[in-house]
């Protein structure tokens, strides 16, 4: 049977790699250290596939066609594209997808009432490219992204994200194959992007989220409303839906915070978290 061999959660921001020099060296070192430790553990877990809970930033899904949840069926993902690579200052590359796996999830979901959308062509920005740059620089593990709308309200509720994540976890464990699957969620924690409060970070909210993650205390997270997250975590904080989905896939698993830094220069409350059975 397939098994979940690793679960990890990180923030994403283009400036993490695009403008490292503007951050405070001690903050950057601690955060990069967290990524490096995640990479070490992920490599040791020897995954055959990384399922990524992630969100678009309106580069793929426009307002004319906005899925709440979308399974990636691409053969490969720009992570990043050549243009994105210049901006994020990381090498452009294609990361292999897992379309057959994605199609199986899609079919099972639609049969069971989890009405995923799907896409055969997706450009990864920082939400895929930056974490994968740190975690799998060799790019030799295929990815299966599951997109949640975190950027174009109205958004699916955290509770629904948790249910969809739980469905993905059950799907993985029910596979008759011997796949070793890693789960990665990217996004959050607090940040305000493009709003009148752009640049704000709320470490108190971030710590609250992390405390719940460490204790596997999921109820307060799934009860969060859109307005509460927007007020305390900003529009970027809405991306904790990806974390909540991952936690749904691994019930009772507990987070270990390897690093948390509110990096003002990257306008993001940045964290790296390993999740233990």
């Amino acid at each position, binding site marked *: 049977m397939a098994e979940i061999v690793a679960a990890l959660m990180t923030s994403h921001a283009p400036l993490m790699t695009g403008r490292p020099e503007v951050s405070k060296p001690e903050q950057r070192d601690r955060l990069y250290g967290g990524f490096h430790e995640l990479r070490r553990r992920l490599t040791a877990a020897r995954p055959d596939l990384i399922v990524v809970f992630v969100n678009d*930033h*309106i580069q793929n899904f*426009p*307002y*004319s066609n906005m899925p709440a949840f979308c399974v990636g069926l691409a053969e490969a993902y720009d992570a990043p594209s050549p*243009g994105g690579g210049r901006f994020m200052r990381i090498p452009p590359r294609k990361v292999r997808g897992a379309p057959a796996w994605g199609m199986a999830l899609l079919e099972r979901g639609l049969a069971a009432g989890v009405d995923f959308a799907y896409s055969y062509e997706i450009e990864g920005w920082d939400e895929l490219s930056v974490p994968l740059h740190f975690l799998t620089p060799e790019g030799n593990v295929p990815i299966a992204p599951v997109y949640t709308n975190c*950027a*174009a*309200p*109205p958004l699916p509720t955290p509770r629904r994200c948790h249910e969809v994540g739980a469905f993905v976890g059950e799907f993985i464990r029910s596979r008759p194959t011997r796949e070793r699957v890693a789960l990665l969620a990217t996004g959050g924690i607090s940040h305000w*992007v*493009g*709003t*009148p409060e*752009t*640049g704000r970070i709320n470490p108190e909210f971030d710590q609250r989220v992390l405390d719940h993650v460490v204790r596997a205390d999921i109820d307060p997270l799934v009860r969060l409303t859109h307005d509460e997250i927007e007020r305390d975590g900003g*529009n970027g904080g809405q991306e904790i839906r990806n974390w909540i989905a991952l936690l749904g896939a691994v019930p009772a698993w507990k987070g270990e915070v390897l690093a948390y830094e509110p990096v*003002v*220069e990257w*306008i993001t409350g940045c964290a790296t978290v390993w999740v233990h059975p």
Partner: protein
Amino acid sequence: MIRTSYALNKLLTAVARQHVMKDGLTDDDLAGHDLSDAERAALRAGDITRLYHLGANPYLIRRVFRSRFRI
């Protein structure tokens, strides 16, 4: 109730896909788009706060009017 202006977001998506940053949009940029007077004025002025309150998506505001942000 979420305030969203489809007209604003459609236009901002189109401009963002050109990968050029703007201080303000021109009449050429706005041509053919069904916008309110308030939306046109905010787009011309590059008024990022006003655009937010008019229902433009903040990620799109940031991509198009990056130079208007202090950080």
